[in-house]
């Protein structure tokens, strides 16, 4: 058991190293950061000096070693654009992205499960067909177009919801800002959360529907029916409960990709989160931010995967036996 855990953690560390290597080497090629930082009339000698100061003239290996060493100390350097510590910048932006991702995941989970259950129970009902049709259209349109259409409809035409930003945010503790405590914060959250969560919502809806249909067919449910339980008890007490475990697990696993896909949503809604910071960093060839962002996303994925694997190892008797054997 311990050996398994240790091996799994070691593997995760290796994965992180690989992510770091990819993040670092690839971004080393994206472009020359020095050109971003100087005006057109900066003398060549000064440009050379800048390269020297930034360590861009060292060998790639030396630069990578320096990168890893600093990353271990949460030091990703200074953003070329903002002249601020990248760690501080990311920490400043993280609440916005995390709150958006959380809202999107909650929206996807709640609406997705409700619609999925409904579609499974009323398999041939009109509303079920409509839900499925809507969900299909939802996954058939690019996110950015959906976002723009929502802005056009709800902000410009109807003037109900704000078109960009986080609204009024409140400081909680030393480094967290939240939009959950103000009305404008909630209003600002609605459109981006729907845009971001729509894709996951349709996936969850379809998953719940097919899982429910499968479970409803099993002997287990047939027995429950034979025992004379009410339909409601069967549907929600037995069938849904069995469906929910994998659904919640998957939502957890998907949280990482929601955060990554927030890049597009944040761009459209000008949401001041990490994704927007990253995209701007790509456009301005701000290597420290790009590297740190990739490391962060990598870390999130690896951690989520690790936790899920370990949890299942503890929970699943078959796996536990296999590991001991």
């Amino acid at each position, binding site marked *: 058991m311990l050996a398994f855990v240790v091996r799994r953690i070691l593997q995760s560390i290796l994965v992180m190293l690989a992510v770091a290597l990819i993040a670092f080497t690839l971004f080393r090629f994206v472009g020359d950061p020095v050109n971003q930082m100087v005006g057109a009339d900066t003398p060549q000698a000064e440009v050379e000096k800048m390269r020297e100061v930034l360590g861009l003239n060292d060998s790639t290996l030396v630069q990578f070693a320096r990168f890893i060493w600093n990353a271990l100390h949460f030091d990703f350097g200074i953003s070329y654009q903002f002249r601020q510590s990248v760690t501080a910048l990311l920490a400043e932006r993280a609440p916005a992205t995390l709150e958006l991702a959380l809202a999107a995941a909650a929206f996807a989970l709640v609406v997705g499960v409700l619609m999925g259950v409904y579609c499974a129970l009323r398999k041939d009902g009109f509303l079920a067909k409509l839900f499925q049709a809507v969900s299909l259209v939802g996954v*058939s349109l690019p996110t*950015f177009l959906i976002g723009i259409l929502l802005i056009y409809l709800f902000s410009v035409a109807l003037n109900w919801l704000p078109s960009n930003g986080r609204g009024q945010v409140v400081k909680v503790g030393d480094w967290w800002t939240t939009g959950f405590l103000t009305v404008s914060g909630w209003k600002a959250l609605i459109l981006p959360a729907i845009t971001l969560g729509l894709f996951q919502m349709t996936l969850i809806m379809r*998953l719940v529907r097919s899982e429910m249909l499968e479970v409803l067919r099993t002997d287990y449910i047939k027995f429950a029916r034979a025992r004379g339980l009410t339909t409601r008890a069967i549907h929600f007490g037995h069938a849904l409960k069995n469906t929910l475990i*994998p659904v919640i697990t998957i939502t957890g696993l998907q949280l*990482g990709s929601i955060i990554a896909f927030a*890049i597009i949503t944040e761009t459209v809604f000008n949401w001041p989160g990490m994704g927007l910071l990253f995209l701007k960093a790509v456009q301005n060839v701000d290597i420290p931010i790009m590297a740190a962002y990739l490391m962060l*996303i990598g870390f999130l994925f690896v951690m989520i995967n690790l936790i899920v694997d370990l949890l299942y190892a503890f929970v*699943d008797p078959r796996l536990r036996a296999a590991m001991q054997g």
Partner: protein
Amino acid sequence: MSHPNPEEIKGLTTALTGASAGAAPHLGPPRPRSLIERMKDSDIWLSFKASKLAMVAALVFVLMTFGAIFAPLLATMNPFDPAQIFLADSSLPPAWATGGDPRFFLGTDDQGRDMYSAILYGLRISLIVGGLGVLLAALIGITLGLVAGYVGGRVDALIMRIADVQLTFPAILIALLIDGVFRALVKTGNKEESAMFVLILSIGLSFWVQYARTIRGSTMVEKNKDYVQAARLVGLPVPIIMLRHVLPNVIGPTLVILTINLGLAIITEATLSFLGVGLPPTQPSLGTLISIGQRYLFSGDWWIVAFPGLTLAILVLAVNLLGDWLRDALNPKLR
């Protein structure tokens, strides 16, 4: 499945985008047969004929593919040839609207391109990029999945860890990376020619994991079955066993992934165009047309975004419907 193990969970992740890993073992008898053969005599064909929606989707998809292939014959102009585009004809509304021009049935874009022709050519590019992208992904994924599942051990661990790393980077990040590397390597190259290559590579490299995981799972099941053991005893070389015996029995579910991923790939291409690393506006795909058009959404030139958007939505919808139906048809539990 009250206590799914990690494998099943990963299978479920796959199921999210359509494929069901659990379906693999139920596929056909363990005798290698061609896919078409199996499809014909299974009740898949019957179910296809029974599903009107699937038939409509297939018809739409075939029509669109047809339009894309014969675009040069069907189009009224070549939207990729700057000599045929006249700026003076720019931003004309569709022929039926006031101010429309009968030469341009669906209107023109901001450069004077005929929207109808541009959509046909764009469709062509979107299908080529999406199609080749998912094929590349399938090729990489199936190969790695087969090897990982069959060989096992360290090779398996290595491939699956690479898959983990890869999953860390969504398609958009990968495309940004590949685009950047490409720019650095080919500094003075022709962007129009390289853009398509870059996109295909990005999609190929970001979508392969699903195939690998699905194939690996089913391969691990198949390799312990009698027919594989027998083939091994006879002394057939490993590559032959993998390709001729295991592959045909595990490849079924990938068809579903392939179909669903085609829709995702086309959307990814459009998004990358929006973020500025897609196809250039001189050689517009559907995605590029949409991202050009969205700039004119507020100004009232709705046709520049509406028609390509509609085409894209219908195309992806048709593909998704086909994928949906295929998944249900291949999943015996739902029958």
